[in-house]
C-alpha cells in the first residue's frame, strides 16, 4: 500500500530530516515507526499526509505517486487517511463531539449519523462523559483520545498515528492499542510513530527504526523485538 523509494527530506543544506529512506508497507499491515527524538518519525507521516513534500525520491500510496498528485485531488486523497497528530490539533471553539463529528460531516454524512458515530467513538476511547466539553477543558490525555477518535471514526483506509499514547499511562495505552488492533483486523492499514518501547514490545508488530533520518532497522514480528 505504501512504498518509500530512496526518499530524502532536507531543510537547507546541512539539515536533513530524512536520508535515503526506502520501505514498503502492505495493505492491512500494522507497524511502528520508532527512533530517538528528531529521528524523522513525524517527517515520514507528514510526507504521507502531503503536509510536506519530499526533496528526493518517490512515495507511492496505492501505487499512485503522491508527490505528483494535482492539488485538486489532494482532499480526496486525504479523506482516505485518518491522522492522529502529536499536538492533537483540536478545534478549541467546537465541543469534543463536534470535533469528532466534523470528520464525518466533511465526508458528507448527515448530522444524525455523524453525531451518533462520534458518540460511539468517544465511548470507545473512554471519555463519553466529556462529549460536550471544549478541548481546553480537557486534560492532555483526554485531548489525545479525542484526536484518536476523530481519526478512526470515519473508518479510513489508512491510519497514521503520531505518538498516540505520548500523554497516556501504560494501562490506557494498551487499551487504545486494542482499538487499533481491532481496526487493523477490519483491514485498515495502521502506521504508528512511537517511542513507547514498552508498548511496542507488547504488541509484537513490525517495527521500523530510524536514527538521524536514516532507516537503520526493520524488525518483523517473527524476529526478535528491538530493545533499547
Amino acid at each position, binding site marked *: 500500500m505504501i512504498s518509500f523509494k530512496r526518499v530524502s527530506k532536507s531543510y537547507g543544506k546541512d539539515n536533513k530530516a530524512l536520508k535515503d529512506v526506502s520501505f514498503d508497507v502492505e495493505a492491512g499491515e500494522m507497524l511502528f515507526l520508532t527512533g530517538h527524538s528528531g529521528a524523522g518519525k513525524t517527517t515520514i507521516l507528514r510526507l504521507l499526509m502531503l503536509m510536506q513534500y519530499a526533496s528526493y525520491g518517490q512515495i507511492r500510496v496505492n501505487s499512485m505517486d503522491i508527490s505528483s498528485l494535482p492539488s485538486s485531488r489532494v482532499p480526496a486523497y486525504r479523506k482516505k*487517511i485518518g491522522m492522529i497528530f502529536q499536538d492533537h490539533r483540536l478545534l478549541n471553539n467546537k465541543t469534543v463531539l463536534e470535533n469528532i463529528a466534523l470528520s464525518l460531516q*466533511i465526508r*458528507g454524512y448527515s448530522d444524525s449519523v455523524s453525531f451518533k458515530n462520534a458518540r460511539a467513538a468517544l465511548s470507545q476511547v473512554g471519555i463519553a462523559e466529556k462529549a460536550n466539553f471544549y478541548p481546553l477543558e480537557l486534560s492532555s490525555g483526554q485531548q489525545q483520545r479525542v484526536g484518536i477518535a476523530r481519526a478512526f471514526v470515519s473508518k479510513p483506509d489508512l491510519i497514521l498515528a503520531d505518538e498516540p499514547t505520548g500523554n497516556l499511562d501504560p494501562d490506557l495505552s494498551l487499551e487504545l492499542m486494542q482499538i487499533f488492533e481491532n481496526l487493523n483486523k477490519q483491514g485498515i492499514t495502521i502506521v504508528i510513530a512511537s517511542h513507547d518501547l514498552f508498548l511496542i514490545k507488547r504488541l509484537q508488530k513490525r517495527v521500523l527504526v530510524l536514527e538521524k533520518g536514516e532507516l537503520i532497522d526493520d524488525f518483523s514480528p517473527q524476529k526478535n523485538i528491538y530493545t533499547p
Partner: protein
Amino acid sequence: MIGSKHTPSPTLAYFRGHKRAVREGFSFPWKKPIRSVLTIATLAICFFIPLFLWTVWLNYDELKQSWQTQGSIAVFVKGQTDESQINQLIDDIKANPVVESAHLINTDEVKQQLETDKQLSKFTKLIKSYDLPQQIGVKTKISQEKSDVENLVKMLEQRPQVEYVSYDQQWLNQLQGLTSTLLRMSHVSALLFLVIIIVILGNTIGNEIAEHKQEIRLLELIGASNAQVRRGFLYMGVFLGIFAGILAVIFLFVSFWWLDDLMSSLMNNFGVDVSLKGLNLIQVFAVIGVSILVTWFAARVALTGQRLNEIID
C-alpha cells in the same frame, strides 16, 4: 455503519455542506460578540462613507438641474428695430441647438421681473424714471456646457439689432465652479475611499480569517476540499456584509436627517428650495447587496492568502 460503501452521494454531501456552512458562518460572529460588533461597525463605516458621497451626489445632480433651468438669457433689442427683424432674430435664436425656447417679452413684463429681484428692485426704487427697450427671453436647454452658452451669447452680441445681451454669467460661473469642485473632490474622495475601503476591509476580514488559521489548516488535513474550507468563511462574509450594509444605511438616514434642515436652510439662502432625499427601498437593497458582495469577495481574497503549500504550523 460508516465505511466506503456507505459514502453519501456527492449532491447530498454538497447540500448538507452548504446547510452546515450557512449555520456555521452565521454562528461564528455570535461567539465573539464584541469583536463582531467592532468588525461590523468598521465595515459599516467603510460602506457608509462612499454611500454618503454617492447619495449627496444624487441630490446634487438633481439640484444642479433645477439650477440650470434658471439659466436664462435676456436679449435687449435696439429701439429702432422693427417687428419683422425681431421675429427673424427669434427664429435664428431658436435654431441654435442650445436653446430650449425664445420669445418676445413686453416692457411691462420686464419691469415686473425687475421688481421680483431683491437687489435690483431696491435699486429701481431709487431711480425715479426708466425706460426699457424691447427684450427677448431665451431659455437654454437643461444641462448645457458653459462654453456653448457663452458662444451663443457672443453670437447674439454681434448681431446689429442687439443692444445688449444679459445673462447671469456670475451665477453660471459659480455653478460651474461648484460643479467642477464637487466633481474633482468626488474624484479625490473616490480614490481615497477606495484605498480606505480596500485597506480596512482587507485588514478586518484578513484578521477575522487569520484568527481561524488553525481551523483552516485542520480542515485541509482532514480532507476538506478548497470549497469546503472556504464555505463557512464565505457565509461569515455574507453575514458580516448584511449587518454592515444595514448599519451603513442606518448611518446614512441618521446623518441625512441631521443634515437635512441645515442643508435646506443653506440652499434657501442661495435661492434654491430643495430638501435632501435619502434612498428608496430598491436602492437600500442594492446597497446591502453590494455590501454583501464586497465582504464576500474580500473574504475570498483573504482566504486565498491563507493557503500555503507546507502546513506544519
